[in-house]
């Protein structure tokens, strides 16, 4: 694979920040966009823009065709059985909330157990806290071991018949941990629980096959996989989607409407009220085409290479503590320096052109678990380079000198 050429597909990377070449290692927060995705947006707005689904005129038909074609692309990317299992949303957060509102409202009762893990992103924790409050269900959490993996020895006692929802993150954005989602979903299915996987860090990074995982729902965001901001998807097994009440009311999700009452379309339309983010969906399609042109397996291998290099080199730094298992891990390394608080370090790095993220990474309970106020995180994508990792090491060494 010609990675240096691929890197040139990303115009944003070619810039100076504070007089230094930008090193963008905040990919787990949001990825950059290749030229082909930006061009897809421009093309849409310059040639085809119109509202979808309701129009019989040329632009509307073009927009509708381009929009609907993406559903199939998403379905194929994550191994869904049919494209009607893909509901477009703003991203992971909205996807989880849809399920935690609608499914939970219909099927959760007081005393039921919602089983999560101790490493969930706030977006897969707070919606369930709200659902628990509304339904009277009880939240439980699979604990996290010191090495950043789940304590699976607790499963026998935690995965009981009371568990009606099991949800966990596929790849942790704070630890890099890759959870055994297939095994966990099998255990959850065995007790009759509904399962939802938070794939924000997985789709577009590693091969994902929702049917092999055996989950009922799978949520992800486009902006972390080269697509525009504001678009993502919820995968749902069709039978489950079909069993669910509508979510938002409005145009496009109804069949017949009278002043008093309405009946609703079949999924996915039932859950897509109002004018969707048409350009966002088309951009998501372009991102999928782009990622496929490289190959998800090649992307995964490239990220693993960079991550391994970073992990090894960083572990040599004095006074550093690396969180999460050494391997397998997602494309990120989270760490704490004895001498510097994450915000001081990230500030320091920024003045050298290096974009790191510092803080709780939307996982406050996990920070408490590891007794750190926050961590610093370097996260990679396939367009990053070994030279950038070396540059980061220079900067980290400087920081250690500066703050010690």
């Amino acid at each position, binding site marked *: 694979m010609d990675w240096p050429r691929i890197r040139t597909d990303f115009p944003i990377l070619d810039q100076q920040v504070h*007089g230094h070449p930008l090193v963008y290692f905040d990919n787990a927060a949001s990825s950059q966009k290749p030229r082909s995705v930006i061009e897809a947006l421009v093309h849409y707005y310059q040639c085809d823009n119109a509202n979808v689904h309701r129009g019989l005129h040329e632009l509307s038909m073009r927009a509708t065709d381009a929009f609907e074609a993406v559903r199939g692309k998403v379905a194929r990317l994550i191994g869904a059985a049919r494209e009607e299992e893909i509901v477009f949303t703003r991203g992971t957060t909205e996807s989880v909330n849809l399920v935690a509102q609608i499914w939970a409202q219909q099927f959760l009762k007081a005393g039921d157990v919602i089983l999560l893990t101790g490493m969930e992103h706030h977006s897969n924790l707070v919606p369930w806290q709200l659902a628990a409050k509304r339904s009277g269900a009880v939240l439980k959490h699979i604990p996290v071991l010191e090495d950043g993996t789940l304590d699976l020895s607790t499963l026998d006692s935690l995965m009981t018949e009371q568990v009606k929802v099991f949800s966990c993150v596929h790849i942790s954005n704070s630890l890099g941990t890759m959870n055994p989602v297939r095994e966990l979903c099998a255990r959850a299915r065995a007790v009759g629980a509904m399962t939802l996987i938070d794939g924000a860090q997985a789709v577009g990074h590693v091969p994902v096959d929702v049917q092999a995982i055996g989950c009922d729902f799978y949520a992800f965001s486009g902006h972390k996989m080269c697509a525009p901001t504001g678009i993502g998807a919820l995968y749902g097994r069709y039978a489950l989607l079909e069993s669910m009440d509508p979510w938002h009311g409005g145009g496009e999700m109804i069949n017949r409407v009278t002043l008093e009452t309405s009946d609703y379309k079949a999924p996915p339309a039932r859950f897509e009220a109002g004018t969707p983010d048409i350009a966002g969906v088309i951009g998501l399609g372009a991102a999928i085409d782009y990622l496929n042109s490289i190959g998800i397996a090649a992307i995964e291998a490239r990220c693993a290479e960079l991550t391994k290099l970073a992990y090894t080199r960083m572990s040599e730094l004095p006074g550093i503590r690396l969180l999460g298992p050494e391997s397998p891990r997602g494309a990120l390394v989270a760490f704490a320096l004895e001498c510097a*608080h994450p915000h001081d370090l990230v500030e320091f790095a920024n*003045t050298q052109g290096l974009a790191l993220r510092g803080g709780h990474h939307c996982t*406050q309970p996990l920070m408490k678990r590891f007794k750190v106020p926050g961590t610093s995180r370097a996260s990679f994508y396939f367009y990053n380079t070994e030279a950038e990792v070396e540059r980061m090491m*220079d900067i980290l060494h400087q920081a250690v000198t500066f703050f010690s």
Partner: protein
Amino acid sequence: MALSDELRDLYQQVILDHSRNPRNHGELTGDCIHVHGDNPTCGDEIDMWVKFGPEGQVEDIKFTGQGCAISQASASMMTVKVKGEGGAKVKTMLEDFRHIVLGDAPLQDEDALGELILLEGVQKFPQRVKCAMLGWRALEQAMGEAAHA
């Protein structure tokens, strides 16, 4: 690969020294006011104990906490300057310190703040203002509670 001037301004030696060796660190016991402050998005936390005199002067002050160099140094430097000062003067210092980090108005009493002026480097880093203010907001809260006690 020179460090930027702005970064040097933000992390002056005095500031780094206070953050590594905070003054007035620890807890007060006995008749005093205890407040807790935090910046939840940063994870910065502070616990502060203040003993006020009958006229509202700061007779003693101590703190513990965790957080970035700016938040801890600012709190440490503050305790040094406010200890022994009367309530009105501390209020002015609080207002002036806010002006220092926001750069939004001239100071009323520049001398009172002494080396705290070094924290004006924060002006270039607006997202760090709340770090620099953490200890001061805790003190403000303690003064409010003292007034209502």
